[in-house]
């Protein structure tokens, strides 16, 4: 594992250095923004991710071995430079956190500069750095400016996947994949229920996941609630959001007879609006629900944090509860009847609209709960945290079979394992891509998914 990390770090630094060997030279149409990260008196800091944003563009940069990054810009104006503090070397912090982000004025034909001063953190170990330090990946948040939604969270690596010495790498990755899969199953189950009952692929499902993470973040960090209460609050907030979405938006659309494809495009618009609203309220920086790293326990050849263990336990209990509800209760039978054939269900006296309304509440609540647990697992949440996971969730439910709840769980486990195990052969910033390749292959070979029914593919 350490060897892999070292290799990645070298790769990243080498890459940056390569990029920096084509220095930026200002001319009529180009301005240069030279960024330097340095520890005063000691030397340059490599691998610091910076985001330059303004005038309609966003550029991500990483400092090279000389601590420098040059960003060529083609439009004059004011740019904000944001340092991704999670990429600073472990045990260090910004000298002046208040000056991050900083605004720099850029004129064409000139060079502008900003020096980021890094100092050892006041109290060693208090710094909430995540598992993999400076692996050379850069994060460039902000969907708006350059319209790139998902860069940020891809750099987030789970602590579980990057275990220290004393662990078996394969066993550790298997564990990480299973944990991720279970949590992903919880988050994606709701999208599958919605698809089953209404036929709608909800592209705003990722934002419901973000909503859960962000509500928990607010509850713990702003209102100082205990974590368990924050989880309850976030789940309730999700349920409320689901009820509102159905009552105010999708129920009227169904009454108007708006087609399922239009409804899908509505969810895309909704997702874009919500994503930008999250960025508006919370900014682009990571928002960890609990700061500090939770204690890790050694279980045979693997390590797991108490936080992840509790997350998985909650997820398994909730998944079992949902399975029981679907299988044994009146509401569950009604839900399955509606997903089978809404017209026939209505004819047998089931109130289809009321079932769909409850499914929306349950779906959004599950997504929010999944969001909190995934945020605890990935150590942080961020405005685009859910939208990054959206396609993984789609992959999970498509893989398992659209509309089949048990399939969604199976599919999520497969996706979780693929995501984590792919880091054995692929660079870690491509792990989500590997899951999407699986998605496309499944659609190619078995479009109804593992447990789906063939008639659904039309």
């Amino acid at each position: 594992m350490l060897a892999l990390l070292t290799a990645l770090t070298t790769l990243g630094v080498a890459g940056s250095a390569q990029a920096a060997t084509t220095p930026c030279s200002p001319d009529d149409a180009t301005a240069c923004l030279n960024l330097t990260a340095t520890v005063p008196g000691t030397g340059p800091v490599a691998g610091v991710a910076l985001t330059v944003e303004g005038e309609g563009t966003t550029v991500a940069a990483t400092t090279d071995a000389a601590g420098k990054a040059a960003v060529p810009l083609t439009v004059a104006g004011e740019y904000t430079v944001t340092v991704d503090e999670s990429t600073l070397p472990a045990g260090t912090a910004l000298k002046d956190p208040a000056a991050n982000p900083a605004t720099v004025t850029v004129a064409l034909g000139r060079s502008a500069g900003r020096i980021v001063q890094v100092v050892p953190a006041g109290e060693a170990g208090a710094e909430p750095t995540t598992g993999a330090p400076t692996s050379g990946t850069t994060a460039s948040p902000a969907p708006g400016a350059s319209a790139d939604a998902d860069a940020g969270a891809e750099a987030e690596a789970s602590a579980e996947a990057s275990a220290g010495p004393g662990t078996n790498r394969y066993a550790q990755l298997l564990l990480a994949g299973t944990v991720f899969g279970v949590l992903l199953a919880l988050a994606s189950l709701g999208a599958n229920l919605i698809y089953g009952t209404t036929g709608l692929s909800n592209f705003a499902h990722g934002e419901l996941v973000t909503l859960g993470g962000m509500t928990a973040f607010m509850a713990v960090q702003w209102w100082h609630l205990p974590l368990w209460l924050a989880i309850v609050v976030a789940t309730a907030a999700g349920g409320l959001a689901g009820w509102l979405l159905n009552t105010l938006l999708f129920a009227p659309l169904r009454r108007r007879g708006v087609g399922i494809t239009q409804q899908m495009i509505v969810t895309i618009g909704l997702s874009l609006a919500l994503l930008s609203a999250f960025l508006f309220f919370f900014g682009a920086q990571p928002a960890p629900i609990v700061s500090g790293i939770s204690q890790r326990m050694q279980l045979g050849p693997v390590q797991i944090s108490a936080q992840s263990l509790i997350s998985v336990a909650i997820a398994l209990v909730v998944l079992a509860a949902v399975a029981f509800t679907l299988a044994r209760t009146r509401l569950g039978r009604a839900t399955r009847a509606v997903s089978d054939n809404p017209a026939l269900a209505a004819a047998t006296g089931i109130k289809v609209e009321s079932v769909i309304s409850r499914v929306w509440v349950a779906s959004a609540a599950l997504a929010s709960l999944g969001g909190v647990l995934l945020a605890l697992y990935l150590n942080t949440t961020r405005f685009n945290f859910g939208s990054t996971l959206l396609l993984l969730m789609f992959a999970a439910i498509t893989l398992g079979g659209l509309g089949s709840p048990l399939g969604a769980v199976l599919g999520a486990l497969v996706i979780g394992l693929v995501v984590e195990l792919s880091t054995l052969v692929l660079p870690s910033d491509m792990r989500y891509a590997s899951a999407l390749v699986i998605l496309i292959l499944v659609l190619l070979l078995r479009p109804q998914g593992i447990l789906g029914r063939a008639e659904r593919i039309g």
Partner: protein
Amino acid sequence: MDFGQLFTNVLNEMLGPTAIAYALAAIGLNFHFGLTGLINMGQAGFMLLGAYGFAIATVHGAPLWLAFLVAVAAAVVFALLLGLPTLKLRGDYLAIVTIAAAEIVRMVGRSTALTDVTGGSEGLTGNVFKHTFQDASPFPDDRWSLGPITLATNASNSWWLRIVGWTLVLLACLLVWRLIRSPWGRVLKGIREDEDAVRALGKNVYGYKLQALVLGGVFGALGGIVFVLASSVQADSLGRPVTFNTWTILLLGGAATVLGPVLGSLLFWGALIFVRGFLRGVVPPDALTVQQIEQIGWVLVGLTLMLLIVFRPQGILGDKKELAINAR
């Protein structure tokens, strides 16, 4: 606040390379969605592949025409890869596969493993791939003014790029205008309205869908080239939101029309820059930061997309009777 400056900015953006690039991408999407009824949610992937194809070919010494061909070929291959397996399935499968494929292209493009080829997440800067295009310009290196707008003649975000870009848009519109009225275009519209009926007439529906997907993807790639010729090739600048913006543009102007995508792009970027500039001038800077004002603009884009598809799916120029959106 300075309204003169604001309107200059709006005008500059409406005529600028971003609007051109999005107009081309929306023309491509019009082939997919407006004519054939295909839900392509990965137009940004076509744009990004076009951009990478053009830039990487140029970096490796290809002349301008070859770089263009590489970009077009990349889009064709991508369309075939996506279309062959999915066009026989229901419509929302194509949506999920295209959005996933576009994300794969972006993730692979920004990966540190490919830094030597794609520049990783920092991308390829303008000075390594713009020279062939700028050298092809007939103008002297200078700065020209037209009304309130002053730009370089050749470098980067230039008059030369605007002239070439709008010429491309004009040619694309002519092509769409001819094709819509051709037997080929009528078959596409037939597929959009009722696939089974067209199949019953003995047409190869699958083949026609594939042709539409490839053609629309090529226009996406051209849009991607224009987009990066004004800035740099950076994977994250052509992500999912770019696809969503393109959809908004197409639905705003009017799907299945010749000039709808162009009008949509002009209005979209004009309105966005106007809202931002206006809010920046009106709202005191301590109330909202510049970034927050930008986000307000994007929230409005999302709401526009939602309202358009529900209340006016035909957009400004479209014919409501013609455009029945059915999932297939």
